[in-house]
């Protein structure tokens, strides 16, 4: 008997990882379990019994020792559901009232957001340079639209960096 699957599209910004985790848990409590994530933000769920599952997302920038990385999570009881642009999707069933975490202290959790930020910080100046170097014939409509789009992306990057920085600061403690 084939299990029912459904695909959903839901957009989450990089700094909304906690919302994304909460949404996946809610789906699981309704009997829809994430089978795999796909770019861009398309989730495949399969039907099953409702479960009190915890979903956690990690973000990595290097694939060095990726197999060791996955093995460590597996040993710790986390199921890997796939990756989407650096984001790693993990699931673990709650045992008792305790909520399992992949990051157990704020400093280490900040590393995840630092990695995200460092990626954006690299691309931000590249975009600025591209934007400020327009070709000679810059009155053409195509270039105007291009510039507008570029400007929009620069603003988006700026917002993303600020939001992630704020998210990091939420984690600071005494």
């Amino acid at each position: 008997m084939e299990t029912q699957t459904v695909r959903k599209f839901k957009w989450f910004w990089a700094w909304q990882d906690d919302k994304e985790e909460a949404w996946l848990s809610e789906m699981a409590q309704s009997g829809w379990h994430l089978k795999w994530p796909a770019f861009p933000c398309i989730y495949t769920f399969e039907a099953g019994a409702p479960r009190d599952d915890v979903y956690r997302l990690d973000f990595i920038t290097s694939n060095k020792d990726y197999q060791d990385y996955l093995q460590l999570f597996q040993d710790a009881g986390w199921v890997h559901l796939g990756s989407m642009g650096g984001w790693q999707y993990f699931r673990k069933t709650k045992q008792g009232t305790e909520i399992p975490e992949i990051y157990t202290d704020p400093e280490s959790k900040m590393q995840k957001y630092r990695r995200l930020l460092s990626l954006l910080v690299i691309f931000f100046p590249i975009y600025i340079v591209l934007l400020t170097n327009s070709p000679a014939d810059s009155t053409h409509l195509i270039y105007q639209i291009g510039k507008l789009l570029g400007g929009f992306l620069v603003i988006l990057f700026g917002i993303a960096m600020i939001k992630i920085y704020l998210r990091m600061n939420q984690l600071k403690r005494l």
Partner: protein
Amino acid sequence: MPNRDETTKYLPLSEATCYILLSLVEPLHGYALMQKVEVMSQGTVKIGPGTLYGAFTVLEKEGLIVKVDERDRRKSYLLTAKGRAVLLEQVRRSEILVRNGIEITKGW
């Protein structure tokens, strides 16, 4: 033997890092370490895989631990001389704090 400046720049260590270094006096791999820390700390400190993976990366890069084995995609690490020096310094520092704490909170 590493000099004092090289070791004190890492202090104070987080609780998790402290326990990781304490556990690696003998070779241990990821999950075994996670279990050992939970027992050693009497349940007060738990280390998640994300935290541990990050800690291993940084500690190895700074030369406080070294990889001694790799089997079935699991790396085992061990404290280096530098790691021992840092740990010793942290324990000395924590001891002063705890002595103060015990004295002041007597009878609370």
